[in-house]
């Protein structure tokens, strides 16, 4: 026989049934569904794992940044004004995605999309500047194969660039598929996941401009 156990309900109260406990504080739109909660946690876990992946590339770079049997030194290579502009652009794009999420939570669909488009444009200009920068280095003789330093540099910065490019593809897909949709508990977690990812890409850049570019100039 399958009946609800008579003690079941009192047990829920005694042990603080998680769902009912969360029910008291209403969640924001991206967290109402189980899928939304899973997505948020999943992206965080992914970010944690990716941090260690980037950390490994950073560690390799730090170990090899003086290993330049031939090719130019970081001091002669890096141009701080360009890096500063790139940094400012990426930071701003991270901020615009914050604004997008704030508007999403208020269900302001068109404002959210506007901020997302702005994020995309900023991200895209960052990517263009990075391509320009790499092209410039190659002409100076600093290539992927020129030295261990070269490989470590392009592995790290290029891997970040690949993350930016992937983020742009992701955001474009999101914008396309949601172009005519409203904000729902089904679509909101997707936007929120993207914004978390995009912030993470920005966080990595903070360490890149510090450790690769600024330290390349002084250390």
């Amino acid at each position, binding site marked *: 026989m399958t009946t609800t156990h008579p003690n079941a309900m009192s047990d829920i109260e005694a042990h603080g049934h998680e769902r009912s406990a969360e029910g008291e504080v209403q969640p924001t739109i991206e967290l109402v569904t189980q899928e939304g909660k899973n997505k948020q946690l999943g992206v965080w876990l992914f970010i944690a794992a990716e941090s260690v992946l980037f950390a490994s590339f950073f560690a390799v770079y730090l170990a090899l940044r003086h290993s330049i049997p031939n090719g130019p030194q970081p001091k002669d290579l890096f141009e701080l004004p360009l890096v500063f502009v790139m940094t400012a652009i990426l930071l701003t794009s991270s*901020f615009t995605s914050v604004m997008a999420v704030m508007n999403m*939570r208020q269900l302001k669909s068109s404002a959210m999309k506007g901020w997302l488009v702005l994020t995309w444009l900023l991200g895209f200009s960052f990517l263009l500047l990075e391509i320009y920068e790499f092209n410039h280095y190659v002409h100076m003789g600093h290539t992927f194969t020129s030295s261990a330093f070269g490989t470590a540099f392009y592995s790290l910065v290029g891997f970040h660039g690949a993350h930016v490019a992937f983020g742009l593809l992701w955001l474009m897909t999101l914008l396309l598929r949601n172009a005519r949709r409203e904000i729902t508990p089904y679509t909101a977690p997707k936007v929120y996941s993207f914004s978390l990812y995009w*912030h993470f890409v920005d966080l990595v850049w903070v360490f890149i401009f510090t450790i690769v570019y600024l330290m390349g100039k002084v250390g």
Partner: protein
Amino acid sequence: MSGESSTFKRPDRREIRSELKVQTTAFAVSIFLTILAFGAVVYAIEQGASQGFAVSFIIALAIVQVAFQAYIWMHLKDKGHGVPQLFFYMAVYVTAMTVIGLMFMSWWSA
């Protein structure tokens, strides 16, 4: 979706305003920290100041900035972020091990 509440919170006007203030401040602080870091390096190069100091200074700035963005932009400060926070710190721990390991145990002279 069965078994799940479909009601969710729409932040009210006051919450929006305070949140907007916090996020904008975070942005301003980020930009400020960035300028500070670049400025420190330019200063160090031109004035020939201690490079060790410059390096530790900019790394400290980077750590502050990352913590700031993670807590505010990525909402780690918000309720219900205990597990993400835990994993954030685990990642910091493994990162530290990896970086220390490769930086200090890869090269040695005879």
